[in-house]
């Protein structure tokens, strides 16, 4: 009966192979990333000991006396991410509660695309805005603020990651079943207390997952910090001083001419590997938290 299918059977098999190959290529990309990062980082640690990498307090690969201590870059990265979170968490939570519990449908329909748009703006444009608008503005308020600092990029990043901290938190809150909300109202609770005592605790894993993804995004963000945070690896928690982040260092080195296998070339892979690990840990936590949402209801 099916002999009439003829060549079609083979076409069908062939197309399956094509689709399967395409799926496997996505795995090869990850393998490729891990391969380059590990191989070149390994080369790097042949020249610079892991002990120096983790205990040295200075990062001066472009100076005559080269010192490779990752901490100034990590502290710079986390300082900016922390400032971003200080801006983004209250703002995001406020917006999320407002949109999911109070706002009318019209406001919601307008607000959502606007918040999502924050992610679509090219980061180099944010960089321009930070360096030439936000920093001069902040210099009028904050005394002794250098023209390269971590405060301004931190604040701009705080807005930039709102699609995670506000939008994802709102999605989590909306996921709380309406009957739970109504049960709370029926007991006489106001909207505000329902939001604080019922909705937030019920959707906390989704909200925190959004925060962590936002933080991960802030840690990996490159252009804003490369343009406006400076190029000085500086072990400090003073947000007024110029610093350098891991991503900023990679950009700084890549802008020069990079001979294959040189110590500068290898160092950006070591830094990239560190960044990859941090982002991976953040994303895994967020993914685990997200999977917990489904278990609740």
């Amino acid at each position, binding site marked *: 009966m099916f002999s009439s299918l003829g060549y079609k059977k083979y076409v069908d098999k062939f197309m399956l192979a094509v*689709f399967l190959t395409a799926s496997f290529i996505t795995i090869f990309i990850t393998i490729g990333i891990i391969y380059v990062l590990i191989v070149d980082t390994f080369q790097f640690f042949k020249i610079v000991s892991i002990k120096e990498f983790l205990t040295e307090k200075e990062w001066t690969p472009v100076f005559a006396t080269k010192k490779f201590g990752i901490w100034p870059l990590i502290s710079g990265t986390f300082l900016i991410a922390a400032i971003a979170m200080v801006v983004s968490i209250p703002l995001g939570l406020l917006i999320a509660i407002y949109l999911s519990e109070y706002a009318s449908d019209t406001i919601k329909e307008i607000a959502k695309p606007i918040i999502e748009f924050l992610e679509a703006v090219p980061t180099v444009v944010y960089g321009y805005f930070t360096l030439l608008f936000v920093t001069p503005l902040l210099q009028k308020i904050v005394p002794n603020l250098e023209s390269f600092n971590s405060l301004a990029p931190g604040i701009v990043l705080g807005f930039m990651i709102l699609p995670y901290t506000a939008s994802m938190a709102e999605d989590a809150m909306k996921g709380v079943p309406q009957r739970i909300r109504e049960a709370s109202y029926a007991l006489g609770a106001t909207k505000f207390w329902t939001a604080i005592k019922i909705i937030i605790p019920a959707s906390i894993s989704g909200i925190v997952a959004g925060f962590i993804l936002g933080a991960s995004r802030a840690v990996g963000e490159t252009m804003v910090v490369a343009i406006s945070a400076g190029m000085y690896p500086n072990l400090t928690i003073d947000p007024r001083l110029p610093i350098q982040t891991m991503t900023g260092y990679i950009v700084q080195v890549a802008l020069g001419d990079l001979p294959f296998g040189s110590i500068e070339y290898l160092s950006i892979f070591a830094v990239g590997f560190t960044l990859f690990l941090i982002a991976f840990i953040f994303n895994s936590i967020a993914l685990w938290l997200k999977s917990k949402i489904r278990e609740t209801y």
Partner: protein
Amino acid sequence: MKNVDRIPKYKKIKSDIIFPTFGFIALFLVVSFIFTLVFDIFLDGFVKLKDPNFYISFPSRFPDKAGILSGWVGTLLVMAGAIFWSLLIGVPAGIYLEEYAKKRGFIGKIEKIIELNINNLAAVPAIIYGLLALGIFVYRFKLGESILTAGLTLSILMLPVIVVNTREAIRRIPKDIREAAYAVGATKWDTVRDHILPYSLGGILTGLIIGASRAIGETAPLITIGALTFIAFLPPNPFIAEFPYISFAKYWEVLMSPFTVLPIQIFNWVSRPQAGFQINAAAAGFILLVLTVVMNALAYYIRLKVRRKYIW
């Protein structure tokens, strides 16, 4: 009940007025942030935006003579590559995961890994893709700091968006369609070609545009692979007068030529101290911003259209 009783009466009423006010102010703050951004960059770059020479000049040492010609040509060529590669891999991968996946046994486990992997790819910082491209495409495959390398790099960035959107579009097609096709003797590929693909085209297109709008503004991975900031020439023209109208040797030259793109041009101008270059940066930044807005609006419109066209 006890819980509610403990809340004093005045708090009950006032918190429901005060809190939404704060919420609205927060939202207003975000909107004004965006407006300030757009207006600041527009006003700063206005002088250059209305200067037609800005669009047809190469970069220059003199800020008033510098233009974005090599930038936008580079962006166009690199994006063409990125779109080609990401469609080539992303759409088949999405079709496989949604239509062919067995979801059990040993193969099911591999499929689970592929799925997880694509989700993870979306969360990797963009600059890491630059390192991948530098280590693999530039030095190990010896493709150089070329348009081809840049296209491949950005296509990896777009890939997760395209796969996710393809899958979502396919998932919306009801099972009846497939079963009707099988009932009249169509093979799986027949069904995919004649039904699944045409019906999910709108969704795939949406994903493509959203992915492209992200990639077009992406700077970090292209700086990492060593894109030049100063390019005062264009790649050769691969089109010729006689059949087959395209010279493959020249085409290869295009793929292999060094390039710059708009975002890198902006980055280069921003980092210079002269105010003249910052005007250029603002103008080019505004053009880039407009491009992303148009692309996102287009994606939004197509999504709306498709939802109305196919109501199952």
